[in-house]
């Protein structure tokens, strides 16, 4: 019995081998250049990545992209670094925006997009991308280092129910920080929400975005774009003033500190806060699970610092072409073709509309407008408008600092210490600058070695 099964199996193998050889279509499929793409997109986002990849694979016969989920952003970056060291780097890796500084210092480990486009002859035009998006991923001279993919920005989410309960007009969200303080007080007085104001991503929103909006440097050397010897500049007067405002609000109970990074997200979705600062990418989750009336609004600004605020900066991730020994020209070309495919107006628009990320290309935005997406989804264009308003300055291009995730943690730690009452806003920012600068110097030293 057993022998017969074995024989049968052997026969099938031979047969199928013969069949494969006989079928030219199948054979051609196996000759397709294989491109590996590591990403960090889960659930609906992951499904959308798979859909785009399948569409690309079906659109031509030369290249076959395989998308692999590799864990969270930090995991993808760590895995990519480890894979490069083993000579097995993926062709494309999705790296979060705060990893940009590290990736730029990666020398021959990456083939920057401008170089990829030049070598392969596949046009990937920087000017088709939204300036404040591409600025984050470009070299000082405008050449693009990585391809923008999923970008979001920070905005204000208003709980309209809580606003009404507090006697505020939900159609007039607070525009300035002074308005925010007043609104939060009204909410607290009327007990209209459990928490008048919360913030996710404290460092990204309350310091990085705040700096860009008010045209003040987060770090010297044009926020790090002009050199590895940049130093943090967040202990300036306007920064300390803002942190002091948050401390005061926390003391009077109008601001609830609810944790680092995305930890406070569930509070926004549960409608516990009247005003929540968070990523524009929360839109999808709000549509799916919020049981209250909500609306997006622009991030508030301080008119005592700037008359009209600049563009906000992005978050999210971009795609980095990686190198490996023995990687062929055909493989690089395949990677370039896939990047080109993702940036077509149709795909950029679809990605934006299906995920809640902002469209990374201008054509994607215009197409979405033409398709009537913003008419059907009021406020979905607000993040793009906030990203594209005004003229980008060196303070609103984004950040170019090595080991930025670590610096974010340090800043969050020092703000937490200030909220605990262990230090003043000035002390918190001074210590954050001192500790952060040490990290920057370590990075500078390690990259130069």
């Amino acid at each position, binding site marked *: 019995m057993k022998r017969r099964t074995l024989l049968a199996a052997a026969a099938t193998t031979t047969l199928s081998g013969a069949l494969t050889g006989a079928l030219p279509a199948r054979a051609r499929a196996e000759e397709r250049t294989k491109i590996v793409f590591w990403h960090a997109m889960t659930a609906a986002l992951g499904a959308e990545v798979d859909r785009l990849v399948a569409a690309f694979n079906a659109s031509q016969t030369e290249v076959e992209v395989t998308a692999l989920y590799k864990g969270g952003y*930090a995991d993808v*970056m*760590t895995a990519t*670094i480890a894979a*490069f*060291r083993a000579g097995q780097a993926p062709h494309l890796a999705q790296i979060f925006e705060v990893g940009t500084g*590290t990736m730029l*210092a*990666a*020398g*021959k*480990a990456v083939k920057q997009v401008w170089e990829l486009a030049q070598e392969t002859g596949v046009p990937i035009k920087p000017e088709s991308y939204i300036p404040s998006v591409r600025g984050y991923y470009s070299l000082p001279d405008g050449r693009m280092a990585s391809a923008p993919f999923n970008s979001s920005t920070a905005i204000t989410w208003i709980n309209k129910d809580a606003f009404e309960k507090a006697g505020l007009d939900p159609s007039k969200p607070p525009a300035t920080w002074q308005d925010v303080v007043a609104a939060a007080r009204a909410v607290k007085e009327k007990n209209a929400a459990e928490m008048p104001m919360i913030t996710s991503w404290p460092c990204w929103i309350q310091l990085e975005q705040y700096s860009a909006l008010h045209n003040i440097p987060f770090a010297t050397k044009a926020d790090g774009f002009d050199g590895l010897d940049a130093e943090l500049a967040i202990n300036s007067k306007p920064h300390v003033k803002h942190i002091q405002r948050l401390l005061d609000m926390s003391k009077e109970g109008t601001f609830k*500190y*609810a*944790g*680092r990074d995305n*930890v406070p997200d*569930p*509070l926004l979705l549960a409608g*516990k806060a009247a005003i929540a600062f968070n990523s524009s990418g929360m839109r999808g989750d709000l549509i799916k699970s919020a049981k209250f009336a909500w609306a997006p609004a622009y991030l508030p600004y301080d008119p005592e610092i700037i008359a009209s605020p600049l563009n906000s900066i992005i978050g999210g991730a971009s795609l980095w072409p990686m190198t490996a020994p023995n990687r062929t020209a055909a493989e690089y070309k395949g990677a370039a073709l896939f990047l080109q495919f993702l940036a077509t107006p149709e795909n950029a628009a679809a990605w934006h509309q299906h995920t809640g990320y902002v469209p990374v290309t201008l054509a994607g935005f215009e197409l979405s407008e033409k398709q009537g997406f913003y008419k059907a989804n009021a406020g979905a264009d607000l993040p793009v408008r906030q990203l594209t308003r005004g003229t980008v300055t060196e303070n609103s291009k984004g950040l170019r600092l090595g*080991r930025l*995730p*670590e610096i974010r*943690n340090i800043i*969050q*730690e*020092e703000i*937490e*210490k200030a*909220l*605990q009452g*262990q230090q003043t806003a000035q002390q918190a920012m001074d210590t954050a600058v001192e*500790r952060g600068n040490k*990290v920057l110097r*370590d990075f500078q*030293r*390690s*990259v*130069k*070695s």
Partner: protein
Amino acid sequence: MERRTLFEGWLLPVLLVLPQLALTGVFFLWPAAAAIRSSAMLEDPFGLGTQFVALQNFEALFADPLYVQTILRTVVFCAAVSALSMSVALGLAVFADRDIRGRVIYRTLVIWPYAVAPALAAVLWLFLLDPHIGLIGRALPRIGIAWDPRINGGQAFLMVVLASAWKQVSYNFIFFLAGLQSVPRSVTEAARLDGARGWRRFRTITFPLLAPTTFFLLIVNLVYAAFDTFGTIQALTQGGPAKATETLVVKVYRDGVVNVDLGSSAAQSVVLMAGVILLTALQFRFLGRRNTA
């Protein structure tokens, strides 16, 4: 009669030992050597440029007051977790050692938490202690306790100690119970006849006889608290607020995996390795001697 198996030649013994040697080599010696090598290097994340810096990574580490604070914090954390989990386990073991109805059920139930994965244990504790969704966390403000481990370092520390200790109670319980059962009945009977009451019998007879078990568990608990609590802490607090719950392993993870600062992270691993070697040596020295004596 001597019970010993003698092998002809050397091939078979070598073959028998080889798998174990290979495992030790691949999973212990090789990584340890790599860590020691990295700890003496200054390296960019991608390994494009590597520079020998001798002990600079260690110097930088111990010159950093924050690292020294983390060491002290880890010591306090280990002591708190060990003391709490061992005392609770001892109490439970003493009660379970009595002749009570359904003690098999109690014993089984007490052992359960050991099978819970660290991250899951942390989530379970969040369901209790989280200030927004936790049962107890939400009730505390109503009785006048301003409970907010997201910002209160002391409370966050308490939370990670509770969750970590809870997970280790089961393990300690099994060993204490076995230890209690091996205390000779005749000795306790004799004490009883001499008129010693429960607490006195426990203090003067049972507890001293449990000393080897207690010492063994102390070492195991210290090692557990220092190393195996990473998942619990990472899931509960990520080391925050500020640095209130950052122990040495949490810092190794953050510096090595998140910050890709390989030299410093490797140096920290080597420091930790020295700690484990020290604890293990202590255990062998004291327990080993007792057993052979």
